[in-house]
């Protein structure tokens, strides 16, 4: 990986002094650009340096920002972690194995048109805008501060001056996208819905609210600056008016999982480390086995994609905080400090469910979270988790409306998610402190090929294989 210069390349074509709105040679319409350096680069400067050829291509998943590798590549520049840009294109959509960013804005839409061409036009417009925004460019050609003076700007402006901030935008199609309420196929997609893309069953203890469930389309926007993530969803929503309408959205912060070994395991709002056993992007065999849909899995258009399961899990924070440390650790099955399994060792030590203490009682309770969620309790099933904490203020009784916005990517939700959630809902000691209030499942298509042309009436778009 090469280091980008501090200044725009003097040899780069001279674009007018139009802030950010001007597309330059680094425009995502030419997505062959290799990933850029993780540096504190203003959105404006991105334009200038976009023409610089960087030789850092070839990273799996096309990520670099904020990773240890990126930082060591530019030791002298004092890089600010997480400012850089991830490639929008690649075999898989960005935002899955990408190192988990700090902030989330997740939103789902209901498609309001019946017209297949309008849906395709929306996906094309979304793809172009997403490609631009992930590279630190405004959503539209002119940007927030230029263009016709009597027209609203084509970008809303709150990300002006902010760096790309590791923004990734990941798109998915829900079951209701394919099938209308009366069971008929929508948008000519007869027979295209993967069998595995079925609404999740009712789990014991579910307290789902309709206004937090489902959606024809879902977009996960993650960034290291919450304003950048919100900006992305806001501008996509604006583009969708008349074609699709926001059904619900969720903000998240403080990632509760890590997807690379370089990221320390974060803590959830119970105060425990979460996601120690998560699949990381370095485990290419594990991602192939557990995350990416393979040809022959049932829906060939989805090959290279994945299934996204989202659950809004409210934690009864106040009662949890009154639980003795003994109970808290028993419930989780790990220590609150280091995250080591109660059978001993450190955070990365495999739990020993056979280890027993006085009187032959297992050190890790059989109904603990770590035991029930462990692959050995679930036929070897694993998932790539990418959840966030959320706090939506307080409820009318003065209690925090807070918890975990669970996001997981799996190759087969029927074997990797449903049985485990059934087991957890029935037996997990933690269930007493959890309320599942939102839910959804979406098929997440493969990525846009590098070098594809975006925009216009012919450009490549996310989910193109589905409409082929």
């Amino acid at each position, binding site marked *: 990986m090469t280091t980008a210069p501090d200044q725009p390349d003097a040899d780069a074509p001279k674009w007018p002094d139009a802030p950010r709105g001007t597309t330059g040679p680094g425009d995502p319409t030419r997505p062959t650009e290799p990933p850029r350096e993780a540096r504190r680069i203003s959105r404006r400067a991105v334009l200038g340096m976009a023409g610089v050829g960087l030789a850092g291509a070839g990273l799996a998943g096309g990520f670099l920002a904020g990773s240890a590798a990126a930082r060591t590549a530019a030791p002298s520049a004092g890089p600010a972690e997480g400012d850089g840009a991830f490639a929008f294109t690649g075999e898989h959509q960005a935002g899955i194995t990408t190192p988990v960013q700090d902030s989330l804005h997740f939103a789902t839409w209901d498609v309001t048109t019946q017209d297949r061409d309008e849906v395709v036009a929306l996906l094309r417009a979304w793809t*172009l805008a997403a490609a631009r925004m992930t590279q630190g460019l405004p959503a539209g050609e002119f940007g927030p501060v*230029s263009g016709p003076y009597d027209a609203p700007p084509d970008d809303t402006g709150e990300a002006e001056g902010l760096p790309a901030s590791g923004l990734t935008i990941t798109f998915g199609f829900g079951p209701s996208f394919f099938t209308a309420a009366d069971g008929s196929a929508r948008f000519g997609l007869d027979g295209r819905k993967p069998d595995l893309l079925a609404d999740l069953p009712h789990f014991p203890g579910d307290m789902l609210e309709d206004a937090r469930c489902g959606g024809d389309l879902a977009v996960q926007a993650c960034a290291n600056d919450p304003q950048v993530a919100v900006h992305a969803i806001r501008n996509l929503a604006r583009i969708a008016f008349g074609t699709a309408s926001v059904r619900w959205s969720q903000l998240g912060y403080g990632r509760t999982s890590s997807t690379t070994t370089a990221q320390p395991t974060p803590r959830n709002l119970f105060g425990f480390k979460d996601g120690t056993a998560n699949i990381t992007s370095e485990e290419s065999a594990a991602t192939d086995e557990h995350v990416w849909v393979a040809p022959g899995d049932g829906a060939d258009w989805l090959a290279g994609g994945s299934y996204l399961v989202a659950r809004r899990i409210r934690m009864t924070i106040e009662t949890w905080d009154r639980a003795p440390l003994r109970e808290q650790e028993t419930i989780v099955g790990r220590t609150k400090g280091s995250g080591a399994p109660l059978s001993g060792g450190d955070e990365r030590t495999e739990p020993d469910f056979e280890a027993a203490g006085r009187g032959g009682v297992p050190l890790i309770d059989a109904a603990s979270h770590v035991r029930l969620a462990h692959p050995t309790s679930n036929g070897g099933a694993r998932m790539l988790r990418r959840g966030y904490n959320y706090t939506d203020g307080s409820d009318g009784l003065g209690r925090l409306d807070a918890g975990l916005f669970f996001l997981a990517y799996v190759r087969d939700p029927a074997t990797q998610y449903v049985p485990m959630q059934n087991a957890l809902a029935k037996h997990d000691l933690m269930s007493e402190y959890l309320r599942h209030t939102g839910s959804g499942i979406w098929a997440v298509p493969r990525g846009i090929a590098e070098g594809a042309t975006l*925009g216009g009436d012919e450009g490549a778009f996310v989910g193109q294989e589905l409409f082929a």
Partner: protein
Amino acid sequence: MTRSRATHAAAPLLAAALLVPLLAACTPNDPAAAGSDGSAAGSAKLTVDSSADACTLSAAEAPSGNIVFTVTNTGDDVTEFYLLAEDGLRIVSEVENIGPGISRDLVLTAKPGEYVTACKPGMIGDGIRSDFTVTDSGKDIEPTGAVADQIALASTNYVAYVKDQTEQLLEGTQEFVAAYEAGDDEAAKALYAPVRVHWERIEPVAESFGDLDPKMDLREADLEEGQEWTGWHLLEKDLWQPAPEANGGETYVALTPEQRTQYADQLLADTQELFDRTHEASFADGIDAPAIGNGAKGLLDEVATGKVTGEEEIWSHTDLWDFQANVDGAKVAYDGLRDVVSAKDEELATTLDERFATLQGLLDEQRQGDGFVLYTDLTPEQVKALSQAVDSLSEPLSQLTAAVVL
């Protein structure tokens, strides 16, 4: 209606337009056809440096089609930039009021030919001029025809519409006030929503008279501490008197006959004032294409923030009458400009036609007798569907003004 646009270039400046504002590229729904060469929507982008004594363009020519001039004022006085026809007289397009240090874009679609550019620091004289050439790119550029005539006609028609509505409003208010003052509450209630329709159809015009709007249309929630409440909604509350639990726990005290007469007469006098002002010659001068376009958008904004939420008529719940009236007013404004829009951006016109029709279809489903069902009779799903249709229309409607100015 926005009065600040009163100084906008009047019809003579719009004559024989060769250029149309670039709209397709800034419509959010359009991905702007970014080319595989990385160019932005095929736009030619130029810079103009307007200093105290120079007007420097980054190039003296550009290919026909979409052109963006980014004009930066590097001088100390307010400046303007003009693109003039070959004769150096006819204004093809312009940006005004660029303060020192500020940049502004002039976005247009140009046909091949010879032009003259001019910076006018200090906004006086002929400006600093240069020749400018638009070469033939082979792109098909729609001729705009008699745009100026169409806009002039639209303005005339819209002024006539506003006058007509104020006449009907005045007439209706007289009837309403008579019934109310006579204590005939049933008659007054029956007149309330149908009369207010004429107000709601031209609401941005009424709001442009900053002193009249708060006297006539303030809601109780809009009052500041100690402010006297007058106008339609005060009488609304007195006609649909709330129970204590809907009135902050306080027992509603009905207006006395003297108070009724006082406030109703005041409303009538204010309505007469509105009528008089809209019938002055100076009123028509302020109604130009941007005023009409922004007025249409403003009416839909009213729907989105007040009517679809049921906040406008919290005692009578006749919000759907207002809703329909706002849409009526926006549709009239748009219809007047439709030929102009259609010539410049047919896709925008088609979209607006469709979305007006969709919204009207949803409203028609709620008709009952001569009016509508009460807001409180709507299901949450119906409110959501109406809200979505308003959003769907409002987004392209926000492009209307830019589509009808040069």
